[in-house]
């Protein structure tokens, strides 16, 4: 079973009152995972195997199970989580369980590309094709 965790150093993420914002430093894309998506993010990082999460969500709702599988695969394909191969011996109660039990099946999340240029480029010392790095700005 796949145990996933945040793909350091490629990915940085922070929890803002339950909403996870994750940034991929290689692509410049950042993602927002509110509600159930944020809960699944935290549960995966806590060590809950991906397959177990999907199986349990599918038992609650077929469509949710399918969505969860796609969601988790996209976390990996976008370079936000990676397999770490270490299964925790004691796992906390997963957060998604309480949300699903009260009928919250909304796995919406958003991806943003408006920071790509800011994250990816290095405006101070971009490489110049002729002179290499750094590009000097002569003050004389």
């Amino acid at each position, binding site marked *: 079973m796949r145990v996933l965790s945040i793909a350091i150093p490629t990915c940085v993420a922070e929890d803002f009152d339950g909403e996870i914002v994750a940034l991929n430093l290689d692509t410049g894309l950042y993602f927002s995972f509110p509600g159930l998506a944020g809960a699944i993010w935290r549960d995966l990082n806590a060590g809950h195997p991906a397959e177990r999460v999907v199986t349990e969500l599918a038992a609650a709702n077929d469509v949710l199970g399918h969505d969860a599988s796609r969601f988790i695969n996209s976390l990996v394909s976008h370079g936000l989580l990676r397999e770490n191969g270490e299964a925790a011996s004691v796992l906390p109660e997963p957060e998604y369980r309480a949300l699903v039990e009260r009928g919250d099946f909304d796995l919406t999340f958003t991806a943003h590309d408006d920071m790509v240029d800011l994250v990816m480029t290095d405006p101070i010392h971009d490489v110049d094709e002729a002179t290499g790095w750094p590009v000097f700005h002569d003050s*004389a």
Partner: protein
Amino acid sequence: MTVREAIAARADPPGAIGSAGLTAYLRQIIARARALPQGVLTTRRFQIAGQSMVARFSDEARANLYASRLPTAGSCTARREPEFHVDVLETARLGWPAPGRWHDPLSSRDDFDRMLERAGLRALPPYMPRLWEFMVREENWAFQLTETPLDLPVWEAGAPLRIPLHWASLDRGRRLVHGATLGDDRAAVLITGPGGTGKSGLTLTGIAHGLKTVGDDYVVIEPGNPPVAWQAFRLLKQDRAGIARLPGLAARVSDSRPNWQGKLELDPESLFPGCMAASQPIRAILVPHIGAATETRIEPIEHKFALDALARSTLQQFPSQRASGFLFCTGLSKTLPCFGIALSQAPGEIAATLKRFIEGLGT
């Protein structure tokens, strides 16, 4: 052979500093600075966001200029934090060899940062010849090395020691951001956006009508509930067109000369005594834009627009720790209500609208 390989195949220019010799070079500067006899350097003390800063200068005139532009000790309650030190050194005055020139065309930015981190150092990438800014992290001690002040970027005098201040803030969980504030001791707004969107003009208008500010260009933000903005620099910048919009102000600043942006750099306390606050609690983010509106309008905006306005200019100007900077800006834009302000052309009306808005902000 690629262009970069061809460059690497050439001999390094004499006196060039490459990856192999970088940390040794910086350590050499540190040792020279530590060995300077007492009295060679002029000392000035500042206090920024409650942290004491001790700056030593090889040029007394520069010490006095910076002392007029940085908050001095006692401007707010000092925290129980280690002092931050910065040595501002000019090799021409000290009789040292001119600053070495960085030349390592195969080095990447990440390699540069990692190499220094392993050595316990942090440095601004040397994008200007004859300018080195770096710090010894464990000692809270930064260095700015030039041959003469002419080697500094043109914006340095308007925000002196901006990079060391940024580093000092980072290591205390605070951050220097590109923005302005207006308000009072109970509530203030953080005004953010790229250059030309009206931050400085709005700030000047606000203080001319009785509001207070901690700065119009860079402020230190301390996360919290609410976040707190701290004064970083004691000056405002405004072009003559913006000054002309305020009755009587142009005559009071007629002797001032414009800076590299065509703006006058003004001591706000001399113009509007009592207008500079040491700190202000921030209750909202405001993103201005200059328009031809007949009346000023303030309307809610999605946090992502405030994030873009705040992060874009802040991260461009402070590229170190870009990832944590992005998350810092994200946190602010999510914690605070965000608004756009469409500015009219009437300073009095702008100020009145802003005052009503700030009075309505919760505590």
